[in-house]
């Protein structure tokens, strides 16, 4: 038996939905529309959030927006020290990212190491005009000089706490929680 896990909800489904709607508007405003703009979700959570943002942005602007999926495993900075190799999933960016404004989308911004890997991964695929970052949750504790352009909600957390984003697309009830053992 595993010990019962305590869950504290930080954002419910409605708050998540409102945050994503606001971020969609902010992305459009900052980029003055969606010309030369593309969204790239970081696997796994970021991909679903990028899809939701794309749907909202298309509704608002009545224009298609390119959407890609990025797996950062090959760019992780701990591959040479880990004993087990993390699973590699597919990167699928079917458009040329050069000269585009790319909005990277992830669920939780924590140490910033994932974003560093994503930036390197993107740069290997072309030379974007600009890369911006959208996250649903910023929980602090950065280990690299990285900052998000669009944030759903910022929470102060303890370093050892576990923040988890639950998503409908994964068969869960939409919410963001702190899970403690």
């Amino acid at each position: 038996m595993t010990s019962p896990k305590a869950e504290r909800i930080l954002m419910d489904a409605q708050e998540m939905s409102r945050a994503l709607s606001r971020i969609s508007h902010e992305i459009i405003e900052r980029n003055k529309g969606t010309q030369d703009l593309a969204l790239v979700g970081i696997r796994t959570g970021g991909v679903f959030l990028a899809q939701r943002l794309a749907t909202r942005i298309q509704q608002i602007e009545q224009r298609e927006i390119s959407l890609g999926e990025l797996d950062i495993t090959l760019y992780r900075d701990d591959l040479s020290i880990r004993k087990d190799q993390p699973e590699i999933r597919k990167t699928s960016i079917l458009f040329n990212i050069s000269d585009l404004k790319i909005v990277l989308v992830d669920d939780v911004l924590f140490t910033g190491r994932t974003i560093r890997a994503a930036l390197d991964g993107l740069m290997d695929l072309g030379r974007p005009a600009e890369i911006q970052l959208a996250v649903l949750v910023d929980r602090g504790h950065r280990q690299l000089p990285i900052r998000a352009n669009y944030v759903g909600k910022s929470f102060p957390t303890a370093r050892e706490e576990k923040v988890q984003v639950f998503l409908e697309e994964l068969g869960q009830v939409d919410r963001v929680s702190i899970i403690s053992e």
Partner: protein
Amino acid sequence: MGLKQKDLLAISDLSVEDIELILTTAESLKEVGGRDIKKVPALRGKTVVNLFFEPSTRTRTSFELAAKRLSADVINFSPSSSSVVKGETLIDTARNIESMQADIIVLRHSSPGAAENLARFVRSSVINAGDGWHAHPTQALLDLYTIKEKKGKVEGLTVVIVGDVAHSRVARSNIAALNKLGAEVRIVAPPTMLPLSVERLGAKVFYRFEDALIGADVIMMLRLQRERLGRALLPSIREYANLFCLTSERLKLAKPEAIVMHPGPLNRGIEISPTVADGPAAVILDQVSNGVSVRMALMYLLSGAA
């Protein structure tokens, strides 16, 4: 995730889950080969040594490219240019290479069991790239990958392996791998080219090529290894070609959407006719490009355990 073992010596080292993991990882890595910049940093700082005691261009190049696309450093080591001609043993050669901090040693050797023997003496991961007639597991894995890519599955397919099964490590590894994933394997060859314990291989044996082809989903042609044959196995190469060459007429006996595979290099007009080799059913060049992705996957997964 990752593979639990240090080495890949034969298909029997792998569980069905291990094989699936290698194939899905290869599928993800295939995308890297389609980029303008065909390189990712996953194995930065790792050293891969290609230790080839038998001549091979295709396999060695494939391993080299796979390692380089993952940013590993690669050293090619072949006996003609080394101390082996001065009488050094395989184990001593390998220990020297290991002392230079090699993480992965890719070994091709004419003696069956050479890779297994080597793996016992070194801490580096050993990948068997062919040991005599025994095994060539990465060829079987890239063949599985190609079948899965073209057919969507392996389970339930009828695969015909044609030619000198007795002297073929490719056949041995493929029979083991195909059986593991639930394909029906048929082998067809002149009786002199079948191993003594043929029924133990786990394949249905045919002696007439035409009979074996009926209902086939995949036709895997083996190269007639003229350099390994004495005169004893065949009355003549021409007779072999008459009976066992895959021609357009024979191909019609298989299922209409059947695919044709060959590990290369081709003996055109002996085991395969040029019209088939260059025709729409042939996936021979796909096998070559998939080989790089599969070997990348394997090096990535093994380097976790190293």
